[in-house]
């Protein structure tokens, strides 16, 4: 029981750590809660909000409730319980209560700018974190994926192929191909989220090995009914893929695209 309790406490701590990452928002929250408790606790809405935060943290940190909730939602995503914690509203509430106490507009503006500085130092802005990029396609999937999908469609149209069944050698193309073009069928889904048939399952198992066996990959892909292969393959290994009737029809970035020309 002792070990079990320790494990529960460990992943509660881990969930807390994941949620706050390398920012200082949790300290902002702590400062906000202390400020509100000391200076504004008599106000109805402040009392309500602080009481809610206290209850929620109790539920989050108490091992028994944590165990019950994580049984329902899963241990790996237990941090999502912290979505219920109104951290941003509470920090904004405390700062606003502090600022509204200053009656001069100039003082308010200067202090508001200081608050912005503190926020900027405590967190990380969305653009510099590399969250956003530009694409040349309206679906906003990676451009190389759009290019691969278009190449597959062009080849299929040229050769009168009714159904595109594609096998790839990693999760990146399978993640976005069907977002861009849902008519394309895939041998397996992201993180093995499904397989087309047993041969495709064997291909996926093959991909888990440290070194890819290209010949086996091509043979099983053909057996699995895949008429296209999208794979990162060195030039000298191309023959191993082509041996099973696949012909290279294009290259997008590091991915070579093969089409099955023989039945």
């Amino acid at each position, binding site marked *: 029981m002792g070990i079990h309790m320790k494990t529960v406490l460990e992943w509660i701590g881990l969930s807390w750590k994941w949620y706050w990452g390398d920012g200082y928002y949790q300290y902002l929250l702590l400062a906000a809660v202390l400020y509100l408790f000391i200076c504004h606790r008599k106000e109805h809405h402040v009392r309500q909000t602080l009481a809610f935060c206290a209850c929620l943290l109790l539920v989050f940190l108490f091992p028994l409730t944590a165990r019950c909730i994580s049984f329902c*939602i899963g241990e790996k995503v237990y941090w999502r319980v912290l979505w219920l914690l109104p951290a941003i509203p509470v920090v904004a509430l405390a700062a606003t209560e502090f600022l509204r106490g200053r009656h001069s507009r100039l003082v308010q503006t200067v202090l508001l700018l200081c608050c912005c500085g503190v926020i900027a130092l405590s*967190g990380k*802005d969305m653009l510099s974190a590399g969250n956003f990029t530009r694409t040349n396609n309206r679906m906003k999937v990676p451009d190389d994926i759009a290019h691969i999908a278009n190449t597959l469609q062009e080849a299929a149209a040229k050769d009168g192929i009714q159904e595109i069944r594609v096998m790839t050698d990693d999760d990146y193309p399978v993640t976005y191909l069907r977002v861009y073009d849902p008519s394309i069928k895939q041998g397996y889904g992201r993180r093995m989220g499904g397989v087309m048939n047993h041969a495709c399952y064997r291909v996926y198992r093959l991909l888990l090995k440290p070194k890819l066996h290209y010949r086996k990959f091509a043979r099983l892909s053909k057996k699995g009914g895949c008429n296209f292969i999208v794979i990162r393959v060195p030039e000298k290994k191309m023959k191993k893929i082509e041996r099973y009737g696949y012909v290279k029809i294009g290259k997008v970035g590091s991915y070579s695209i093969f089409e099955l020309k023989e039945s």
Partner: protein
Amino acid sequence: MSFIGKGLLALIWLMAVPASAGALFLRKKETATRIEYLLTGYLFLFSLFELLTLPMTYFKAPLHVLVICFGILAGGAALAGAFLLIKGRRTRRPDIVGYLRGSSPFLWAALFAIAFQLAVVTVMAHFDADDAFYVAAGTTAVETDTIFEISAYTGIPYSVLPYRYILSPFPIFLAVISQLCGGLHPAIMAHTIFPPIFLICVYCGVYQLSRKWFRDDRNAQAIFLFLTAMLCWFSAYSVYNAGNFQMVRLWQGKAVLAAFLLPLVFYLSSSIILEEQPQYSWLLLLMADISCCLLSSMGIILAPLMTGIFALLGLLRFRSLKRILYALACCVPSAVLGVVYLLMI
């Protein structure tokens, strides 16, 4: 239909329809604002969608049937709401324009910060691997005219149903809305239309909270709105927090849950359960609970957890059994779906 035409249809279905339909549920609230109509309208649309989709998934109805049923019911509610709004137009005050006229300079700073965020989420792209299911399920539903019959990952029929997702069919909502908008590609709908629309909804919720907390102090409301926008923008310190979900992937159900619906449940719970005179009908809290179920399987647990904590605080404050019973009744949809989920796995 041109791309711009489809964009206009998206504005109608995602802004005008909820804003009109919401009026139906706030008839008794004399001081209701357009923002409240919009938020209530979304609660209605999400609840309606969940209630329609679950039986249709069970009976393997094609997607177009769901599109037609949802379109008629949501459109009908919007028309009825618009009729009510036009009828009572003289008694309603022009809230947004009036508010802007006598506004604090901090409001303009807040609006600028929000407009900047809207521009970023509309123009820029964020690649998220979870789209492999959440968006692909929408594109697959449109492509095959089915509801959760074909695997989003492979494109072949499911051998085992994705139980976790069929109770929270938000990807199908994406598919249905894209069909209602003249067949706009679901990926475009998800990556370009949904983020700004839902971001507006998020800040509408924040604005409501500011009105509750700083009643009659517009300057404080504006400062609160501005600080909230800043805090959200600087939330990239971890990929798990609600602020990050709000900014980078507001087209996925769990992000809409974390950024929009859970704060709205917080606002509604504190305005209904913890007020002497509930400011809204309990029906809104019920609809919020059903809406959370639509968005994500997390919502099935998290929404009643939040309502439950508020119910406990309400019990301590008012010692009213009736109040706690109403609050528990609002959690019944979550409880039912939770049991169904546990029975299915």
